[in-house]
């Protein structure tokens, strides 16, 4: 017994030294990319969900990128969209998972598109203004003075679509941000709201439950993966290929894609021109100023 205690005492300082050495080594690696180890890629994201949820959604993707690029890919989540935009604009992250509006802002600082998401086989979506099917509201103009339900306060595009439809927000009687599309559609069905805005897939799903589509926006580009201006062409091409290679038919890729969003099918090539329609829509909201939360 005495011998075991004695050997344990001798072993412990040794382990501690090893751990400390490992920690130091990793920081040295991080702090000195020129020391010879591959430079890490930082992956940021708009806070669409809680940080824990976002981490869970994005970790499989970062591991995939890391193993294929043979270099570390580190998640660096943002607490808000402005923060996410800022990080990718300033090059504090090399990659970012952005909303269309967030991309536009980041693009002003040189952010480059890598790929766009594909949902249900479509790489674009529409936002739709819906009413109850027995509502007297027949046109967008009839929305004047009515109670409207929006979703996420940060989702500028929803408001931009309503304004783009021809109904300035101030002309609405009242509008509230209910958070999720689920609440928007129920709010309309219950009758608390005269109208609401839904994603096309949700609007179609609820048509049979008593919802009528009043207006649908033009095709809008979806969420995307963008790179900071610091990412060189070769790496950009490499990253693009990696994202485009993700296929549902591959079980490993399937897990990565569905972890990101269960509705996604994968990624598709994209170009800045696709986001022109968003530019137009959010123009009234920007007028040279930073986007409001």
């Amino acid at each position, binding site marked *: 017994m005495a011998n075991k205690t004695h050997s344990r005492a001798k072993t412990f300082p040794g382990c501690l030294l090893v751990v400390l050495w490992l920690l130091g080594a990793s920081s040295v690696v991080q702090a000195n990319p020129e020391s010879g180890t591959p430079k890490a890629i930082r992956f940021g994201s708009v806070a669409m969900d809680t940080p824990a949820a976002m981490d869970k959604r994005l970790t499989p993707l970062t591991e995939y990128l890391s193993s294929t690029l043979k270099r570390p890919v580190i998640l660096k989540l943002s607490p808000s969209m402005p923060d996410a935009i800022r990080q990718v604009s300033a090059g504090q992250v090399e990659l970012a998972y952005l909303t269309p509006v967030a991309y536009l802002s980041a693009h002003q600082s040189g952010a480059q598109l890598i790929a766009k998401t594909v949902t249900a086989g479509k790489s674009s979506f529409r936002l739709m203004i819906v009413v109850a099917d027995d509502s007297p509201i027949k046109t967008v103009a009839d929305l004047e003075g009515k109670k409207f339900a929006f979703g996420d306060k940060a989702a500028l595009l929803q408001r931009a679509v309503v304004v783009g439809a021809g109904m300035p927000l101030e002309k609405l009687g009242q509008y509230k941000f209910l*958070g999720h599309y689920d609440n928007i559609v*129920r709010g309309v069905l219950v009758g608390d709201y005269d109208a609401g805005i839904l994603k096309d897939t949700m609007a179609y799903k609820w048509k049979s439950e008593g919802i009528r589509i009043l207006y649908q926006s033009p095709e809008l580009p979806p969420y995307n993966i963008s790179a900071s201006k610091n990412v060189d062409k070769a790496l950009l091409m490499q990253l693009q290929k990696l994202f485009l290679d993700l296929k549902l038919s591959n079980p490993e890729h399937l897990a990565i894609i569905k972890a990101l969003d269960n509705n996604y099918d994968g990624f598709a090539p994209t170009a800045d021109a696709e986001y022109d329609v968003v530019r137009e829509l959010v123009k009234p909201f920007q007028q040279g100023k930073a986007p409001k939360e």
Partner: protein
Amino acid sequence: MKENKNKSDKWKPTRRLRTQVTMVFVALTVATVCVVTFNAANHESQRITANILQSAQELAGNLATTGADYLLERDYASIEKLLLRTGRFPGVAEIQIADETGKILGDIYRGVDNEISARYRQPALVVPSQPEQWQVMQGESLVVWRPVELGHLIGWVRVVYDLKVIDEVNKQIWRDSILLMFLLLATTVALLIIMLRRPLRAIEQYTEFANSLDSTQGKEMPVESSSIELSNLGNALNHASKRLSTQTEAIVKAMNELERVAALPEYNPNMSISLDARGLVTYSNPSADRMLKEDGNQAQHIFSYLPDNIDALRKECLSANKSKTGVEVNAFGRTLLWTFAPVEDQQVLHCYATDITKRRKAEQARKESEDQYRLLFDSANDAILLLRKGKCIDCNRMASILLGLPRDYILNQPLTKFAPPHQPGGKNSERLYAERLDEALAGEPQSFEWQCINAKRKQFYSEVSLNHFEVGGETWVLAIVRDITERKTAEEKLLHQANYDSLTELPNRMLALDRLSQAVKQAHRLKRNMALMFIDVDQFKKVNDSLGHTAGDQLLIEVGQRLQVCVREGDTVARLGGDEFLIILNNLNDVIEAEVVAERMLSELARPYLLQSQELYLSASIGITGYPYDSHSPTILLRNADAAMYQAKESGRNTYRFYTPEMNQRAKVRLEMESRLRKAIERNELSLNYQAQIDISQERVIGAEALLRWHNPELGFVPPDQFIHLAEDIGLMPQIGEWVLRQACQDALVWRQKFQLPLRVAVNVSPTQFRGNALVETVRAVMEEYHLPTDLLEIELTESLLVEDAPDTAATLQALKQMGICLALDDFGTGYSSLSYLKKYPFDVLKIDRSFINSVMTHPDDAALCQAIIAMAASLNLSVVGEGVETEDQLSFLRRYGAQIAQGYYYSKPLPMTEFETFLLVWNTKRQGKRVPTLS
């Protein structure tokens, strides 16, 4: 009595204890379990109902608490999620959460498929105004309201609970209870049966033991120890068994004593007397008196029932103090068996007699019956054996004679002891005997042939019949064995006669054809080849006719033996009849193998035969055909072999030919020709052509050779070399020869009369015509009939006749010579004749064969030979005719070297009679330098 019997029947038990106990126990258990189950189920049902109702109320309260925040925030999705989760509670039919006005913000319901689903756009609820309305019954549903309050009323929760679920639950409770009840009952009954099994079995054993107490002889049975009562009962039965056994022994003892007492003389049913030392009767029992009375005797006659030497016996027994038994006396129709027992101290001899008259008579009768049986048994002409378990327990005299063994050697033996290991046909004797015995024992009389071996190891055929009979409950078998050797021998002889040629002992035609058929089948089965050979002895008829039938028979026997040497075991040599033999070669790789056999046969047959102190030479013609090449049919194979044989004959004999398909055609043609040839004479189809023979030196026609021609309307002109051979083969030559002779003589007469030309006509005679005296007689008769001078007839015969050198030949030639007929030796130089024959036989003319004449101018050797022949002939005083002269040079050669006569195309081809007459006329006229007249 009857009433008592009925009463006792009434009280007789009809059910078993096990059944009674089981029924009572089961009934009690059923009742108990039913009551208990009912109570428990009822109580449970009430409890569950109360619980469910309580739960419904609590559910609404919980929802009011939980959903308050969602209601306040108008988080419709969360409200819906909460309701969907809560709606799964059993019994919930629908739940709504509404605002304070009753506007529904969340609504779920349970569908007919029991699925919980959300619904929308339902009309606003009518909220209760008083707490009493918070719980109301609506039909089969319970509606529970609870207010949602956060300081103030912000909304309502409404839960509708379906009371039918309570019924479902209650039903389930009852179902479960009833199932449990049955389980309990089954378990209880099973336990009861297990528990009761031992005691009831013990009771049965005790009962059985009690029923057999009288035979237990004091033995004890095992006692069941599972209960005190059963143990006591078992022990009591064992004690009873012992007591009974003891009592039984005592009774038996007493019975024995009684019997002993009964054996006292006074009670003895047999005669019993006592004699004193003087031999006087001092006591006689009532049975003795009765016997005397029955036989009409007085008391003094009692000594007549004793042995004659009773005094001596008495003295002997008394002095030796020893009993004597078994003394038999016959008196007054009785047979008495005496026992003498002395009592020494009293000097009394007790005499006990047992009347064994009936026994003796029965013994006598049995003996007489046995003697009669034995007499019958032993006097039978067949061997009779009694078999018990397959072995002989008795046999008669004939069995000993047949098997050559004493009776004692036959007893205790099975029939197979006197039989070879295998019976004819190959069956194992032991197995056959066992099979037949079993059949007989089963009641089926058996009769079969059986080969026996006697003591001298001689096998003989017997006929065995087996019949079963019962003796003392046991089945015995009576075997009758009859020697059928003579019959078998006769049968075999008949069979042999039917199938074998009596002369050669070879298979005859019938057997040969059967074997041929079997050989074809076997070859087919084994996928082998077989060959059939048809053998015809060449010129056998000549031998038969010349040497007699006895010699001919001997020859055939030897031919058969020689042929057998040439074949293997398994092949067949058969005699079809006459001089024809059939050979069947089995199991060949190829039919061509028969060639070797044929060669050997020809070689064997060519060896000289010694008959009547003469060496004789023969040959044979062999036709060979084979299966499967030539045919699969035995009939066709025979035909093929025959056709091939004829082909061999036509090829010169002493050879063999393999059948070819063409032979059939040829055989067919030959048959046709034969048929027509037989009728050629009567149909006047034969004719003679004449070729002139010219005296070379005088250039005059001195004669003509008659050459036979046959013109058949269907066949046309048939070449002589075809039909003459055929005629010889079929024995037609004598007939044709006679016709030729007659015709030639007739024509010669015409020449003499018409032309005044004494032309000699030369007639060819075949060797077949030289058999016996027929030729001489025919010639004589013809000459006399036509009155032709004998010197105008020339008989030509070939060298082959001389080679045979038969006695008939010389005699015939001499006879012909004596008649004045000219004899010519034809085709000289082509055969193997010995020159000594020229000296021996009285020839007048030698005809040199055309083959020599043709080449005298081209082959010096042939020229030399011709010269030699001419010179030799001259030395023998023979005239020489050169045949086939066609050129001047050939004629000059003949003339130069002294040949006298020429014959050939140089002068004339063979001509029909009329044309020959014309030739004669022209020749003579030209010779005379006259004009040729017209023949009238």
